[in-house]
């Protein structure tokens, strides 16, 4: 019996690094007990992390699949599991299972296309994986634009990586914005949807959106206004999940299970679903 | 005392102002009672929620005793009067469900009654020990 795999039975993972990204987001590096990556995944996929006795929760894997050594999770403090993780230290063991969900179509739809990534706040976490994947296979894709905004400079996730690595890449344009003016910030100020409209992109790109629902809604409207077709816009959903494999019955939107059929959805697919997300 | 007598686990909720001080006084006077008794300090006996009592049984306690100031002496004037009603109702309900009534007790112990505290605990431990293990409100998952 014990040799039968069951997706509900996790592996033990160890937190090997904790990085404080913003006042309420930390990035955790996780490997298995033997120091390896827990499993392979594709950009956009998720993993269930748990703290025994506290609970289990789904997180998108922030690190790129091209990272062979470990996985990273950028986690915002907002509930009991995340609260607990935020006070965990290096060496803390947790459990991990996955990967779950459908990834971004990086190898087919995205291939050869110009890419536009738009993220707000912690919404950069799932995009970081795909951005770094595309940067890794730079020659497979066209121009990459990244629009990223947050409340303030301190709330920008992966700021160092963005300015030191992404912004210096050839063919990658990074556009940062914060909601309100701040001392020491000479970049753009304003909300992401407006910023996107101001920047005014060509519409032959594939766009990927991630952020708070309100941002997604207005950005999508903006993109459509610019002439984007919804079939070229992707986003990710987040709902309460327990099993990760479409059995526990709670993360469905209409007949689609976010854990299994998502979390990545094309925006025109979302239009087909009832408005319950 | 019998040699192999059952060692019960007793949780005692003591109010800060009278009974906890009474327990301290028992200590000052070196009045011995079994180490099976573990005291939890609460501001007033009226802080003891019935769920705490049930939880203690769930987690393996064999007896739960609540100690407060004598009626009329409550630091908060009326807390123990509420305790008295609540516990009368709860204990009666537990008895109604067939759970041994001797496993729960409410006692008034003043800050001056170190001797009464020790005597009460000795008696309660003895009573619960004679009943043996708590089987009727146990949660098998919590057994060692």
């Amino acid at each position, binding site marked *: 019996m014990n040799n039968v795999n069951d997706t509900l039975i996790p592996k033990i993972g160890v937190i090997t690094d904790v990085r404080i990204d913003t006042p309420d987001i930390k990035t955790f590096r996780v490997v298995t007990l033997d120091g390896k990556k827990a499993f392979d995944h594709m950009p956009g996929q998720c993993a269930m992390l748990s703290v025994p006795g506290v609970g289990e929760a789904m997180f998108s894997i922030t690190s790129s699949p091209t990272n062979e050594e470990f996985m990273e999770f950028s986690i915002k403090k907002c509930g009991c599991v995340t609260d607990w993780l935020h006070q965990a230290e290096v060496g803390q063991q947790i459990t991990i299972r996955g990967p779950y969900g459908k990834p971004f179509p990086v190898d087919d739809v995205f291939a050869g296309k110009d890419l536009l990534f738009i993220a707000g706040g912690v919404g950069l976490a799932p995009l970081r994986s795909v951005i770094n994947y595309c940067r890794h296979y730079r020659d497979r894709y066209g121009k990459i634009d990244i629009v990223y905004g947050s409340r303030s400079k301190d709330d920008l996730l992966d700021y160092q990586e963005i300015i030191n690595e992404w912004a210096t890449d050839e063919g990658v344009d990074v556009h940062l914005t914060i909601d309100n003016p701040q001392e020491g910030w000479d970049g753009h100020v304003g909300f992401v949807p407006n910023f996107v409209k101001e920047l005014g992109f060509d519409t032959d790109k594939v766009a990927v959106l991630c952020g708070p629902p309100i941002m997604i809604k207005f950005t999508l409207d903006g993109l459509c206004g610019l002439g984007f077709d919804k079939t070229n816009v992707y986003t990710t959903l987040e709902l*309460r999940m327990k099993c990760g494999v*479409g059995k526990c019955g709670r993360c469905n939107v*209409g007949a689609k299970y976010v854990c299994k059929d998502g979390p990545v959805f094309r925006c025109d697919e979302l239009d087909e679903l009832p408005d319950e997300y | 005392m019998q040699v192999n007598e059952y060692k019960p686990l007793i949780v005692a909720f003591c109010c800060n102002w009278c009974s906890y001080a009474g327990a301290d006084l028992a200590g000052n006077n070196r009045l011995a009672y079994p180490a099976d008794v573990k005291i939890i300090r609460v501001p007033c006996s009226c802080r003891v929620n019935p769920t705490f009592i049930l939880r203690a049984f769930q987690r393996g306690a064999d007896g739960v005793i609540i100690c407060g100031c004598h009626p009329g002496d409550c630091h908060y004037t009326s807390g123990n009067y509420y305790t008295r009603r609540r516990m009368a109702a709860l204990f009666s309900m537990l008895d109604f469900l067939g759970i041994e009534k001797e496993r729960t007790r409410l006692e008034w112990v003043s800050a001056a009654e170190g001797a009464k505290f020790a005597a009460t605990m000795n008696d309660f431990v003895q009573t619960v020990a004679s009943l043996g293990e708590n089987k009727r409100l146990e949660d098998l998952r*919590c057994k060692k």
Partner: protein
Amino acid sequence: MRKCSLEKINEIFAAIAKNAALYLPVDRTDGSAAYKKWEEGTVWSNALNTVRSPKDFFFPQTEDLMRFKTKGKTVQLEDIRTEAEAFVVFGVRACDVKSFDILDRVFLTEPADSFYANRRNHGVIVSLACTRPVETCFCKTFGIDPSAPAGDISAWKTESDIFFEANTEKGKALLHTLSELTEECDDGAVAEQKAKINAVMEKLPLKDLSTKGFGGGKTAELFDAPEWDELSSACLGCGTCTFVCPTCQCYDIKDFNTGNGVIRFRCWDSCMYSDFTKMAHGNNRLTQKERFRQRFMHKLVYYPENNDGLFSCVGCGRCLAKCPISMNIVKVMKKIGGNKGE
């Protein structure tokens, strides 16, 4: 087909119980029936159905998944799975048997749920044709024939005898162990019995209930139907319908800290509960209407959409009998979909 006199039914039970745990419906003091483990002296119930469905045998209300021990920063995982006991569930009605198909499609789809699969592999289902369907029955709506139940072994009861037919290898093996107590026979008596049942089926008040208007692809049409407001208005948000339902399979995974370790267990959950979809920062089904709609849309639209048109209801009638406010799938189907106005 094999038959045995009902007088020898206890011998049959004893023979089954020799090799496996045998569960069968037994009358309770409160007038209802429930599955109980057979032991010498247990009396098999004549009741049409049990309050709880036999899904419990494969998907129990609570089950421990694994255990953890934590010490300092370390976590140890203990896999507590063991081979399930061999067991036989006897007397499962056609509707309930059908529910296993519906559950299988959820739990046995890759990645299969090993806990469910384990019990499924070790359980043998002996079904029983109905003799006395009641007013709450509407299995026919979902294409189920109560006179011809599926299962590893199908059984029919007449006044005097019980007839068995094995449908699967497991069933054949079990029936083989009963060969000394049973005798080969033709299906004449069974055919007669089937006809009797089908005659009663024609009298049932819900015989004309149809699934017309429901099924995969109907989401857009039904989701915003105005009737949901009225239908859900009295719903108390309890879990009675989901818990007595043989096909409801939503579950929750929770951790219980015993003080000496952590047990991770799963338990039934209900989409009717207000916190079913509640997350740390929001809930996508905020009102009872949304939760109520989810339950019926799932059974009548979403599930069929994902499962080749198979509805996730077997018409057993438990929710009709047990809902505290008498709101149920029949009333929903009559208000919405193809039965409108009937």
